[in-house]
C-alpha cells in the first residue's frame, strides 16, 4: 500500500465538462505546496477525465488519486464527497483544500459536516504554524484581514479562485485509482446537463487577471459594447456594476460587488462606475484600479490609482486607439 507523507495536503481538483482540469487546479496545488506535500484527488464519471494524473503532476501534485464513483455525473456532490471521504481516510492529510466554486462549496459543506471537520471558506491564502494549517481571509469586501485555524484536526478550506499566485514545481506523475465505498447519502439527481456555450474568447470574470467593468455611465446596452472593446484590447474579462445589470444591459453573471462576484485582478478598469460601497466591496483588493468617470466626486476615485475625470465616450476610444497603435 502506498504511504503518504506526514505533511500531506489533500487537494480536490475539479474537472471541466471536456475532461481537463479546471483552471482553479494550479492555484490550489500552489497553495498546498506552500504548507505541505500536495496530494491531488480527481473525481470524474467513468472514463471522463483524460490524463488527470499527468496534468495534476505537471501542476505540482506529488501523488494523484483518481476516483470514478458511481453516479458521479448523475448525482449532485454526494459521489464526490464519498470519494473525498475515502481519500482523506487513506491520506490522513493536515488539511483539505477545495476550490470555492459552486460545486466546491457543496462538496466542502457536506464533507465538513459529515466528518465534523472545521471549515474555513473563501480563503485567499494558507500558511502553517507550529499547530497546523492557518487560513487567511479577506472579509467585508477586503476591508478586513482575518486568520482562522481549527481548534484541532485537519481543516477543510475552500480557496477563492484567482487569489493564489504561487505555482508548485512540476512533479513526476504518480497515480493510483481510489476505491470509493458509496455512503448512500441521498442526493439531488442531475436530469440533464448542457455545457455553457463559450460566448467569446474572453477570460472568465472569476479569477481573471484583468477586468474591465461598466456601469450606469455607459447609458445603454448598445454603448456597453465599448466595455467589450476595451476588454478585448487588454485581454480582460468583462464585469459590470449592479446598475448596469439591473438595467438589463448585461446578465447577472457579470455583476461585480458584494452581491455578485468578488474579483482581485492585477488590473481593474471601471468605466462609468460611481463606486458605491457595494461595488467596491467586490473589487477593492485589485492590485491596480483605473477609473474613468465624468463626475469628479464619484467615490471610485477615492480608491483609483489612476483616475480620469472626463467623458468615457471620448477617453475610451482614444485609449483603445492608442493601445492598438502601440501593439502594431
Amino acid at each position, binding site marked *: 500500500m502506498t504511504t503518504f507523507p506526514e505533511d500531506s495536503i489533500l487537494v480536490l481538483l475539479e474537472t471541466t465538462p471536456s475532461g481537463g482540469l479546471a483552471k482553479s487546479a494550479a492555484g490550489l496545488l500552489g497553495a498546498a505546496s506552500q504548507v505541505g506535500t500536495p496530494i491531488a484527488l480527481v473525481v470524474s464519471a467513468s472514463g471522463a477525465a483524460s490524463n488527470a494524473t499527468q496534468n495534476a503532476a505537471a501542476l505540482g501534485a506529488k501523488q494523484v488519486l483518481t476516483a470514478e464513483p458511481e453516479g458521479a455525473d448523475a448525482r*449532485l456532490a454526494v459521489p464526490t464527497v464519498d470519494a473525498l471521504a475515502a481519500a482523506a481516510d487513506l491520506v490522513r492529510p493536515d488539511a483539505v483544500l477545495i476550490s470555492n466554486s*459552486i460545486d466546491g462549496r457543496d462538496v466542502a459543506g457536506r464533507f465538513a459536516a459529515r466528518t465534523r471537520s472545521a471549515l474555513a471558506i473563501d480563503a485567499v491564502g494558507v500558511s502553517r504554524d507550529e499547530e497546523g494549517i492557518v487560513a487567511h481571509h479577506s472579509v467585508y469586501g477586503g*476591508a478586513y484581514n482575518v*486568520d482562522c485555524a481549527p*481548534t484541532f484536526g485537519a481543516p477543510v478550506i475552500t480557496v477563492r479562485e484567482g487569489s493564489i499566485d504561487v505555482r508548485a514545481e512540476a512533479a513526476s506523475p504518480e497515480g493510483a485509482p481510489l476505491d470509493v465505498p458509496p455512503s448512500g447519502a441521498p*442526493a439531488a439527481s442531475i436530469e*440533464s446537463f448542457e455545457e455553457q456555450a463559450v460566448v467569446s474568447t474572453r477570460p472568465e470574470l472569476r479569477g481573471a487577471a484583468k477586468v474591465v467593468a461598466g456601469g450606469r455611465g455607459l447609458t445603454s446596452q448598445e454603448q456597453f459594447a465599448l466595455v467589450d472593446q476595451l476588454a478585448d484590447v487588454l485581454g480582460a474579462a468583462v464585469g459590470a456594476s449592479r446598475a448596469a445589470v439591473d438595467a438589463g444591459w448585461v446578465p447577472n453573471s457579470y455583476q461585480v460587488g458584494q452581491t*455578485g462576484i468578488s474579483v482581485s485582478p492585477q488590473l481593474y478598469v471601471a468605466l462609468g462606475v460611481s463606486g458605491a*460601497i457595494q461595488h467596491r466591496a467586490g473589487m477593492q483588493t485589485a492590485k491596480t484600479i483605473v477609473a474613468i468617470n465624468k463626475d469628479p466626486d464619484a467615490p471610485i476615485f477615492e480608491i*483609483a490609482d489612476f483616475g480620469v475625470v472626463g467623458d468615457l465616450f471620448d477617453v475610451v476610444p482614444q485609449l483603445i486607439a492608442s493601445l492598438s497603435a502601440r501593439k502594431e
Partner: protein
Amino acid sequence: MRIIVLMKEVPDTYGERKLNLETGLAERGASEAVLDEIGERALELALTQAASLEDAEITVVSMAPETATATLRKALAMGADKLVHIADENLVGADLGLTAEVLAAAIRRTGFDLVIAGNLSTDGYGGVLPAMIAELLGVPYASALTTVDISADRVSGTREADGGVMTVAAPLPAVISITERFPAGRFPNFKGIMAAKKKPVETLTAADLEIDPEGLETPRSIMLAVSERPARSAGTKIVDEGDAGEKLAEFLIQNRLA
C-alpha cells in the same frame, strides 16, 4: 407542505460594516441591521409557490441575537406563518459547523418537507450552510437554483453551475438554495404588519436543541487574528483635456498592464 426558509440578519451592505478588532465579531451597532436580501428572495419564492401547494405552512428559522427579533418580524409581515428564532449568548461567534448543527436541529424539531435558503449571504459570503444542513439532515440538496418548481413530493429546477446549466430534481424532503436571479422580496403591507403581531414566534436556546456550544469533542474554527486593511488611497487623478486616453495608455504600458 411544511416549508422552512432560512433567513438571517446582516449589516446593511450599503453602509459601512465593521468588525471589532478585539473580538473579531461583527459590530452589530455600527450599521443598520437588515434582513439579508437573498433570504428575502427565498421567502418570496416560498410565498409565491405556497399558493399552489396544499396546506403550505411557511416557517422562518433564524439563528441571531435576541436583538434581531424586530428585524426578523419583517418576515412574518411579508407573509411567513411562523418564526423560530434561536437566540443564545453562548452561540455568539459560532463557527459554520456549530451554526449548521444548531439550524439542522431546529429544522428537525420544527418538522420539514422543504428547506429553502439563499446561495450566499451578503456578510459571511460562505455559501456552505445549506450543504452542511442537508448532510446533517440526511436529505438531498439542490444548490444555486435559478428556477424552482415545487410539487407535492418533489422539487426540481435549473442550476447554473461552473461550466454549464443543468436540470436537477430531488424527492422531498430536501434542501435547496436559490440565487439572486429570483425576484426581490415583497414589501410588507399594513395588513401584513398587523397580522404579524399575532403570529407565533418561538425562541429557542442551544440547550432546547440539546446542543452544547462549548463541547470540546468537535473541532471548531477559531479566529486567530483580525486586522483592518489600510484604506486604499487615491493615486493620480487627471481631468481630460483631450489627451486623457493617451495618458492612460501610457500609464498602463509603463506599469506593464497593457
